[in-house]
């Protein structure tokens, strides 16, 4: 009984120190609100409002119609007409245009004669992902144009691809981002709370007082872990609510599955946070230590760039990255209604990571306490 009442009072004290000041309270909520409000619009690899430079040396009907179709597609908000190669170079060089299209003088003649007419498209290699996506937009606009032309001429294409997207049919980027944000913001929140709570006590000298109290090192650990888990759950819930009710992202999977996985994820994170704070002497060290862990973990989670594009050995290394597994879980449950079997296959690495980091942290704590 004393065990729980002691932990209870420590947890209460932790919450008090988190919420006692106004700026402390603000900092637990404001970033979450700000990030959920801004990032779905910012962190997108979607290509919108791009500009297309056009150098049209041909003035036949075919080229005019093709350009009109490019202009009418939503991807390009601005068409920049250029009249020479130099202007075209400049448009790309100054980033005015993401793509430039060069239509040769004999374009319409060749098209009407049934020859293949090449159109040069220049992609800005400094923005290779965007320019490739914009190029594929051009390609699909052209495909429709060619199909219409074939249809008008009474020809039938022998085969065609019928493409569909599952889970998110219109490829809304915000769905992907919000699902990933649940994992990422929770990570930042609970990691910093755990990492800094012990080192703050150490820096202010109150850690010794805790050690001479009847609390055992394990109880101190639990007392520090509970608020972090609560903060993590709270922030994740905030984003979930915003995603479902404000952004109208359909939640397809099971909430119980998501929160169950979240519990093990928080334990893994708390382990990391406590380990960092047990090896650092000051708040600065703890914060920067947490940062050195957090940034690579988030960057290599598959959110910024897919894990499968990494070299094979790095893909294996990312197995120990808890963020990677949890991002995958949230996206799976949220958007794809992942099966319990699939979630379990992603949770067991989290359990292994959590067990490892918590054990390490406990060892470090006992050494410090001794």
């Amino acid at each position, binding site marked *: 009984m004393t065990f729980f009442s002691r932990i209870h009072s420590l947890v209460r004290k932790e919450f008090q120190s988190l919420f006692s000041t106004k700026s402390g309270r603000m900092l637990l909520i404001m970033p979450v609100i700000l990030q959920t409000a801004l990032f779905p619009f*910012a962190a997108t690899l*979607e290509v919108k409002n791009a500009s297309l430079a056009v150098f049209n040396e041909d003035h036949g009907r075919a080229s005019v119609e093709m350009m009109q179709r490019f202009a009418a597609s939503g991807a390009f908000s601005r068409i920049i007409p250029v009249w020479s190669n130099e202007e075209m170079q400049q448009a790309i*060089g100054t980033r005015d245009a993401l793509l430039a299209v060069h239509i040769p003088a004999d374009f319409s003649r060749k098209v009407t004669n049934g020859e293949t007419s090449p159109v040069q*498209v*220049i992609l800005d290699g400094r923005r290779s992902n965007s320019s490739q996506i914009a190029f594929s937009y051009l390609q699909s606009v052209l495909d429709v144009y060619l199909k219409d032309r074939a249809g008008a001429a009474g020809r039938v294409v022998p*085969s065609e691809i019928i493409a569909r997207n599952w889970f998110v049919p219109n490829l809304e980027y915000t769905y992907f981002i919000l699902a990933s944000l649940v994992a990422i913001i929770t990570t930042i929140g609970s990691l910093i709370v755990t990492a800094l709570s012990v080192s*703050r006590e150490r820096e202010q000298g109150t850690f010794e007082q805790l050690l001479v109290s009847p609390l055992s090192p394990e109880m101190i650990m639990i007392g520090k872990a509970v608020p972090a888990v609560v903060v993590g759950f709270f922030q994740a819930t905030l984003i979930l609510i915003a995603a479902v009710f404000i952004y109208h992202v359909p939640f397809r999977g099971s909430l119980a599955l998501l929160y169950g996985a979240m519990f093990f994820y928080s334990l893994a994170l708390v382990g990391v946070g406590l380990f960092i704070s047990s090896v650092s002497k*000051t708040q600065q060290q703890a914060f920067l230590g947490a*940062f050195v862990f957090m940034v690579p973990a988030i960057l290599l989670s598959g959110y910024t760039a897919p894990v499968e594009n990494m070299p094979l050995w790095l893909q294996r290394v990312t197995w120990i990255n808890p963020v990677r597994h949890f991002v995958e879980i949230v996206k799976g449950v949220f958007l794809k209604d992942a099966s319990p079997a699939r979630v379990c296959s992603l949770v067991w690495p989290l359990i292994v990571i959590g067990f490892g980091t918590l054990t390490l942290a406990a060892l470090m704590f006992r050494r410090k306490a001794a």
Partner: protein
Amino acid sequence: MKCISWRRLRALCWKETLQIFRDPSSILIAFFMPLLMLFIFGYGINLDFSRLRVGLLVEDGGTAAADFAATLTGSPWLEVHSYDSRAALERALVDSQIRGFVVIPGDFSRKVNQPGVTAPVQLVADGSEPNIAQFVRSTVNGVWQTWQAHRAEDRGEEPRREISLEPRVWFNPSAESRNFIIPGSITVIMTVIGALLTSLVVAREWERGTMEALLASPVTRTELLLCKILPYYALGMISLLLCVGVAHWVLRVPFRGTIPALWVVGSLFLLSVLGIGLAISTGMRNQFNAAQAALNAAFLPAVMLSGFIYEISSMPVFLRGVTHIIPARYFVTSMQTIFQAGTDWRLLGPDILMLACTAFVFIGLTAKLTKRRME
């Protein structure tokens, strides 16, 4: 009273420098973190899809279907896995084992040879990964077009494609995203050094009570400000050179610019982020809060709103407006210009002007917040 006593300033700077070098965490951030980040951005953040995992189900035993399947499998851009049922394909897609799948339906070979009939091929992409889905679609489409062209050629028909788009990539012929991501990532590294490290320094003095001791001394506001800026400026510049060196010689990113251009742009950006970090630290007076604030006010915008991964032009108008007050935005474009295009002052000019403004604003804000008295 004179604004600056050089002796005092030297002593204060020396004290700050000692504090930097005595704390392993600042060395970790200034020298280890940049290498780690460059390495991550060099190898881990790769937006060029080399092998997309795609499932394939061939329901048709005809030669045309087999031929198309072989073309798909032979594509260097795809890693094709064969499945024997739709259910298996769907499960693999839900479990993210594949990013999309192609189904060649039962009557494909018959229909494709029948004049006047279009034979459909079904392509399903995993929409929960929108960027990957785009690449799956365009890659499979490309393979399909090649297959059609070859087929027309083999049968002696004239090419059906009247217009072909021929892409040519400028500035970066191999289209490797690394060459533009690494110069951009240096921005994030410099933000970490400039804003995160400094967000703690003034708050720490307040928390530990050493600020009172400082204020009791004859130190002036300008000195107080300079002694916090100069050592971290030096640290940041060394780190910048380290980053550029590693990017160029180890990661083999072509560097076409010059050192003076790098110095001008780097200094202005560093001063801006130092200003942000110090302003937060001076305003908050609490390390925990300052750290959180710096993370949200400097680090996350540098990643999300600077345009080095995420295209600014794709953002809504309101956010595009916000990016204008973020110094990282100007540093990203100027670093990319310096690396890829060389020292072109005409291109760099506007960025330098904006960076000078942000540096002035944020340092000015810190100066305003720095009070020479206790509250």
